[in-house]
């Protein structure tokens, strides 16, 4: 066997190098699969509809595409208007069912892809900022692939172990002196160095390949030849690079950085001959500049860190506004290819010098040997156990009645919303005493950024959604950034115990120890949420775009196609709403099936213990009552009504004729 294969066996098998490499690959893959969220959730949620538009727009911006898109925007707006007008005409008897069907069919062909349109229009606005190099394409795959802009800690730790072991293991058992007496000592050192560098290169390449395969399979990586500026994180770049080339460049730079770090560790280990000092120098040379220096400076240093991060070499300049004077402050200036080349050359020179030094130190010099100490390789890799942002606890069954159009009421408490101050209060129905929500005396006292956004009651619990915006204008490390955190708190009205059952930071930009990074926009919708309800399995958030279901166990989000213009009711299992065709519809949250009640055409409704009160558009807007399954409609009032509201005790309708309130006692 050659020296190389001996060294391979020693480092990779006996010292468990292979084991660490496989562990790093496995951990990275599992972590990626477990934590990945689409960068643009609308594109993923309405993928088919979005792709319908993309087929027509794909590629560079043209005047024709822009005109067509504007035309489409106009058509969709008109179609929405036509639909409501047709419904109005049909339900008031001005047109026949046949005419109505025909009109609706026409409208539906225009609106078939309306959800995808929102996503594509946002992309259009982005493309319009620089039409020369921003193309239309499904960006989720590429954006996810390029989203890794922070240091890959699993790769970093494995490089530390692999590179520090190579020579330190010899020094720790004083084998180095013996090795230097061997005729092939230089060859042995060369084999070790080459093998370590190749393995590190392969590991980094392997990780890049796994990411590429993962995003390719999950979202697709179409049109690698399009300019890199098509992805928002490289939007400001002036480099003329395609998406695929950009990924290859980044991978190449990261591989170079990894190998450079390994060389630095080999060099340090030969220099200091101690495990701990080698590793601490390796960690400090990477981590201290990473946390302590601005990106602007980091990308000018001939150390492994900028190459390990790499993304900044392709990014454009970025700046923030001075919080006081409003003047722009450059936070990152674009690195030109010449600067990158110069840094690469300088780093390569350091690299070569360090390799030369390592080999020189391991060349025969017939030093006196010392007794060998038996060496044992002990190994185990501690896995990073990162706690998820928040957890949800299992609550008792929710079976209270919820109507988004009115505040909830239980036997003992009712929720009162003050339009003027935009605050919620809890009224004790027996005593009439009012208690402000949230209960904490500190809530909102020192900050305007704290507010209650919605309340859901399910006796004896009251759930409220609080939003807290913190501005870090003056803070060190996170210059001028804001963070909004939305929580759902469960308040037990009997014991006044409060428990947070759901909590998320909604912004996609985050900062840790001054290191800024971004996550997907999954939780952004919480900022625009104005109502919610829940059961044991899921939380449902009402926004203008629909109802978003969040499973309480695995925190997966799904947008339900429920129009939120009117009332939304929930009885613990079924969501009731009025669909686009004005039909009262039930959506079963267990089976995920939607069932429109064919005979119930309503302009407004409310859910009560008795059943569903609704304003029947087919009968001059009179109020009817039907069962929760939509059958057994019964006329309740002969007067046309504008709205019908249930407040927990009684149903109130507002008359169309004079705006008076009529109360039905249940």
């Amino acid at each position, binding site marked *: 066997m050659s020296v190389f294969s001996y060294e391979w066996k020693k480092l990779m098998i006996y010292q468990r190098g292979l084991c660490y490499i496989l562990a790093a690959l496995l951990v990275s893959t599992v972590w990626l699969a477990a934590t990945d969220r689409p960068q643009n959730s609308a594109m993923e949620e309405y993928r088919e509809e979005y792709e319908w538009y993309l087929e027509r727009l794909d590629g560079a911006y043209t005047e024709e595409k822009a005109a067509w898109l504007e035309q489409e925007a106009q058509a969709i707006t008109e179609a929405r208007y036509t639909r409501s007008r047709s419904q109005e005409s049909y339900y008031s008897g001005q047109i026949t069912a046949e005419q109505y069907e025909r009109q609706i069919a026409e409208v539906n062909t225009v609106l078939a892809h309306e959800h995808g349109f929102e996503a594509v229009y946002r992309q259009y606005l982005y493309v319009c900022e620089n039409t020369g190099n921003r193309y239309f394409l499904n960006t989720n795959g590429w954006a996810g692939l390029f989203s890794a802009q922070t240091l890959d*800690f699993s790769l970093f*730790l494995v490089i*530390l*172990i692999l590179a*520090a072991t190579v020579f*330190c*293991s010899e020094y*720790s058992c004083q084998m180095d002196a013996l090795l230097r007496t061997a005729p092939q000592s230089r060859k042995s050192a060369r084999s070790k160095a080459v093998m370590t560098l190749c393995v590190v290169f392969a590991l980094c390449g392997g990780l890049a390949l796994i990411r590429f395969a993962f995003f390719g399979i999950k979202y697709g990586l179409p049109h690698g030849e399009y300019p890199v500026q098509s992805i928002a994180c490289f939007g400001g770049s002036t480099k003329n690079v395609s998406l695929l080339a950009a990924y290859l460049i980044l991978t190449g730079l990261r591989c170079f950085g990894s190998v450079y770090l390994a060389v630095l560790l080999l060099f340090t280990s030969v220099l*200091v001959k*101690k*495990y*701990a*000092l080698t*590793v*601490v120098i390796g*960690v*400090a040379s990477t*981590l*201290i500049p990473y*946390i*302590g220096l*601005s990106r602007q400076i980091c990308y000018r240093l001939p150390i492994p860190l900028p190459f390990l991060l790499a993304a900044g070499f392709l990014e454009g300049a970025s700046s923030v506004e001075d919080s*006081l*004077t409003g003047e722009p402050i450059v936070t990152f200036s674009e690195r030109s290819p010449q600067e990158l080349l110069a840094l690469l050359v300088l780093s390569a020179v350091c690299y070569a010098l360090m390799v030369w030094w390592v080999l020189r130190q391991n060349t025969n010099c017939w030093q006196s040997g010392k007794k060998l*100490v038996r060496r*044992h390789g*002990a*190994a*185990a*890799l*501690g*896995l*990073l*156990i*990162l*706690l998820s*942002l*928040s957890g949800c606890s299992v609550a008792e069954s929710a079976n209270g009645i919820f109507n988004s159009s009115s505040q909830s009421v239980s036997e003992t408490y009712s929720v009162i919303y003050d339009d003027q101050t935009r605050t919620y209060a809890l009224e004790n129905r027996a005593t009439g005493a009012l*208690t402000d929500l949230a*209960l904490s*005396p*500190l809530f909102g*006292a*020192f*900050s305007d950024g704290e507010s209650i956004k919605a309340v859901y009651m399910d006796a004896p619990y009251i759930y409220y959604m609080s939003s807290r915006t*913190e501005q870090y204008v*003056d*803070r*060190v*490390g996170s*210059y001028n950034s804001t963070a909004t*955190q939305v*929580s759902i708190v469960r308040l037990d009205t009997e014991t*006044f*115990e409060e428990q*947070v059952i759901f*909590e998320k930071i909604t912004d996609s930009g985050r900062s*840790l*120890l*001054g290191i800024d990074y971004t996550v997907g926009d999954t939780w952004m919708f919480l900022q625009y949420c104005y109502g919610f309800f829940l059961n044991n399995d899921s939380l449902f958030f009402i926004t203008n775009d629909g109802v978003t279901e969040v499973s309480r166990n695995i925190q997966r989000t799904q947008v339900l196609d429920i129009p939120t213009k009117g009332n939304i009711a929930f009885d613990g299992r079924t969501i009731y709403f009025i669909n686009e065709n004005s039909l009262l519809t039930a959506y079963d949250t267990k089976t995920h099936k939607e069932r429109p009640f064919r005979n119930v055409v309503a302009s407004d409704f409310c859910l009560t213990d008795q059943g569903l009160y609704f304003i029947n558009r087919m009968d001059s807007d009179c109020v009817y009552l039907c069962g929760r399954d939509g059958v057994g409609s019964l006329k309740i009032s002969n007067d046309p009504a504008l709205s019908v509201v249930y407040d927990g005790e009684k149903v109130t309708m507002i008359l169309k004729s004079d705006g008076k309130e009529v109360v039905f006692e249940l």
Partner: protein
Amino acid sequence: MIRLIRYEFIKQFCKRSILALFVVFSLANLFKIYGEYKSYSFLTDGNGERSWHTLHWQLYEEYRGEITPEKVERLLAAYQPLVEATSDMTASTATDDPNTMTGNLYSDRNLLDKYFVTPMQYFYEYSGQSEQVANRARQSAALYGERGAVYQQRESGAIYNLYAGRTIPAFAYREMCNYYLNYDFSIILTLLLCLYGIIGTFVSERETQMDMLLLVSPNGGRKTTLAKILAATLFLLLTSLWFSLLDLIGFAVSFQTLEGLTLPVFAIPNFAEASVNISIFQYVLLSAALKCAGAWVIGMLWLLISMFWKNALLPFVINFALCMALIVSGAACAYSNFSKVLNPYSLLTNRVLLGKTEFVNLGGFPILTWQAAIWFALIAGLAVAVMIYFLSAENCHRCVWRAK
């Protein structure tokens, strides 16, 4: 025993490499602090006659000290005309206007706004806001009393006691203290240095097979282990204290002032809900003590992990990974009171504990998170130290003696 501890301390921690790292990390820390000053302070424009730096300190002499109606009126008399002149953004943008302090109207307004009007307004309004909190807490306590919710009543009572009578009577420069209290970089340096120092405590004996020899010594075995634990504790405390002190010195030198240390800690905006009624200087001391406790408990955990290995590499990497996990989980769970209490890293970035009035329910009593965290850290640290003591090999002499 004291001699043994001294020997262990000298052997483990008075090494050239540690001293070199101490110097390098301290310099890195000072550079970083100076970088913070240059990046974030508006008073870095030199000592020119019309510079913000010069003008600020001139004006400061006028407004410092007790906030009186005269001072407020004088300040507003200078500020209001500037606001009116610049409100429609049509005022001259000339930078050499002789009728202004800094040469520019907008710049004058910004200087007064940033360093005098906004802080003074905050100081002035704070007592009213805290009074409001105290009143709400008193009302809540009464309500909970009626409903029989004892824990909530106690919590409201504690909030009342904390917030009743809070006031910021004097005006002082607070920029330096603001950045000092929000500074985190030195924590990473402390942790790295402590990790490097701690990792060799047991491992170096094993690497040189000195552990076998130690067992035959009368002072070997658990006695040496105890000395090592105490020496490591001393090292952790000294390192932590050094960086706390260095931070204060660094900020004071960079900002060229120690003004503001006598202000109450809630004079800093993101400490408005601080759970302690102390001055910033007292806070600095408390924070240093909490940092020591955090560093000590993390250090004991590292020590425990490192005693099972024969070389320093894997325990170093595992301990480093553990540290990163604590940091990341500390940031991710910063809003959960219990995870803050259980995570020793929050003692290091102790503003997450001291900056908010938050309680944990321990046996029906509301305990402030920083108090709970320090108790938990001390108990956990002691438990780990005891584990290290009993898991270490016993002295052979004693084994033989016991066998007899």
